[in-house]
């Protein structure tokens, strides 16, 4: 963070130095030019900035305010200070949904990152039909999660699902994937990983392709075998990209909702009832908007802290 800003500051300094004559009058004409440039630049980003302020920043501030109120759908509200947050700390449902979210993240992130790294490494090597496979692996990413969840719900079905039919042939099961409290989160994580890994795969593939050939070639000349090349050359060079992928997948996992909504409705016994589902119920089923906003803000803080930690880790590397 600090290194970045320092770099930006040092970059324009050669400009006044290059202009001959006393520094004060020379500095003057340069400023309006730069200011005009800045104004033009601002003009270019203004539409996006406006959209961001109106649709992102504004609602966030609004939610922060709402979280301090008891807001009814009828429009009447009263200021209650930190009462919503106090209630949150004592709410078992909040803690259990937070636990489900954390556990889901632990299943989902390694699964997705492992899957996308594996396929990226394969695609990086295989030249034959690479475009085709890249397309095939990316396809689930562009399908709707609701559609994917409906199909996977059928695959996991305990009575006549595809997976249990396969297990039946092997004279195993039937396994109640979505009805067993211990299996439901890994099962949903697998569905989400299947649906989402294509995106991270593309990013990792791009990262792999940007590693200079000479480095790997040098390793080959030094006699490094495939595994050692991967472990000591490719992966360290891929680290920034890998961290980026980890961050976005983790943030995605914290915000999980739709797959659970469609596949289990949070069950059995709230074993797949994550924070965002709780937030949704509180806001849109119970119309308890103040409390829902407090939940949203807590989720925002969790994601923020997580992003900052990750950012620190990446920043140190570069």
């Amino acid at each position, binding site marked *: 963070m600090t290194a970045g800003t320092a770099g930006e500051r040092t970059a324009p300094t050669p400009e006044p130095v290059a202009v001959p004559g006393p520094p004060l009058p020379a500095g003057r004409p340069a400023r309006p030019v730069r200011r005009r440039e800045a104004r033009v630049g601002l003009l270019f980003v203004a539409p996006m900035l406006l959209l961001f302020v109106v649709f992102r920043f504004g609602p966030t501030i609004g939610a922060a305010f709402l979280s301090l109120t008891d807001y*009814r*759908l*009828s*429009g009447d509200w009263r200021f209650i200070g930190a009462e919503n947050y106090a209630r949150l700390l004592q709410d078992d449902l909040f803690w259990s949904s937070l636990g489900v979210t954390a556990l889901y993240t632990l299943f989902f992130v390694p699964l997705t990152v492992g899957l996308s790294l594996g396929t990226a490494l394969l695609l990086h090597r295989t030249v034959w039909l690479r475009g085709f496979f890249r397309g095939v692996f990316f396809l689930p990413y562009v399908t709707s999660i609701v559609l994917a969840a409906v199909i996977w*719900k059928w695959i996991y*079905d*305990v*009575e*006549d699902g595809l997976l249990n039919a396969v297990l039946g042939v092997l004279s195993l099961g*039937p396994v*109640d994937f*979505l*009805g067993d*409290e211990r299996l439901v989160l890994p099962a949903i994580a697998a569905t989400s990983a299947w649906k989402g890994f294509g995106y991270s795969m593309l990013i990792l593939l791009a990262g792999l392709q940007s590693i200079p050939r000479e480095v790997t070639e040098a390793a080959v000349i030094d006699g490094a075998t495939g595994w050692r090349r991967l472990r000591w050359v490719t992966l360290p060079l891929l680290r920034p990209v890998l961290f980026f992928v980890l961050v976005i997948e983790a943030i995605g996992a914290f915000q999980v909702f739709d797959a659970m*909504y469609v*596949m*289990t*409705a*949070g*069950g*059995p*016994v*709230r074993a797949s*009832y994550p924070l965002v589902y709780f937030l949704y*119920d509180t806001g*849109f*089923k*119970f*119309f308890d908007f103040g409390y829902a906003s407090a939940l949203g803000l807590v989720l925002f803080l969790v994601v923020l802290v997580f992003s900052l930690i990750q950012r620190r880790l990446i920043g140190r590397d570069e």
Partner: protein
Amino acid sequence: MTTGSKRALAPLALLTAASLLAGCGGDGGSEANDVTVWMYPVIADPKANSAYWDQVEKDFETAHPGTTVTIEEQPWENRDEKLATAFGSGKGPDVVLLNPDQVPQYLGNGALRPVDKAVEGIKESFLPNALDALTHDGKLYAVPIYHTVTTTLYNKRLLDRAGIDKPPATWDEVKAAAPKLKRVGAATLDYSASNEATLNLNFYPLLWQAGGTVFSEDGKKAAFNGPEGVAALTFLTDLYKAGAVPRSALTNTNIFADHPLGKQQVAMGFSSTLADADLARKTWGAGNVVVGKPLRNAEQVSFGVPGGLGVNAKARNVAGAEKFLAFMAGPARIQSLGKASGFLSPRTDVTVPSDDPHAKRFQEALPFAYPGEPSPVARQLMALIAPEIQAALTGRKSPREALDAAAAQADDLLARQR
């Protein structure tokens, strides 16, 4: 800097002024002799629904020259969210279709006005249950225009295969049928325990059949964890453990097609609709469909609600709104709406003519239809009870423990309301 911000503010102010003017224009547009109505897809086929309500607009205006009616078709989805927002901002419709469980919620916000005047003289001809469900403190808040009902639906093929001649009509008969059906590889009783499935079609009918209630008499405490509730949940969990309730119950949501009942994996449902029976006739074959009376234990009861028209407390044209209510509650409209929607008549002196072979059985189930106990927290409460029922089904808690846990949460919720 200051001029800059002034310059920036000028168009903003103009925009605000323009939108305010537009808002005023919108309000001024609807004249005092116009009645706006929010209607929902009561007729499942969207085209037939639009055609029906277009015709109602025309017929009403012919019958009442000088009063115009605008029927706006709304989707069922996010129904309360939209209605509450509209009422809250003072832009709600004059007339709106309401279910009994919505009434206390909007009544609490002061959004509804009594409609007794619209049914003056014909009040006695409505089903008492239907009127009760829409009445609060002695005042009627919606005029019933149709009534839904659910009852038992049996798969004769499965019953025959298990050697059961008489379809199980009581809890004891269900329990007795379970091992026989299991022998032929079928489950006995369909159930949906997903958190998104309404308890009105699942746990509550069993609770009522056991003689229990959801709330205490004054509505301030949970009552579903009494001995009746425990009996109902024990009945259910015993069947589930024995494989007599489909294993997929935990994720099922009362859908007929592609679910155990539709797929002929379970012999009976206790909350089936006429639409389910028609679908069964098409997929199982007419000879395999049996529609029975509501399931019986201590009580014989099933879920069914009146759909009623309520009037906005801020309606501009109250007289016109009442005229529309009376128009829709007349025999001609009740018959035509019932025929188009497949729903039943809320009046004892009017029956909906039907050539549907099962309609008569559903009509016979109507006197047993119960719309549930009205409460502003009805839906929230379901979200608390459903996971505990799952806990009982999966064996993590005993029926008593599960219901006690839900009741403790329910009492918290009820205490927060007051």
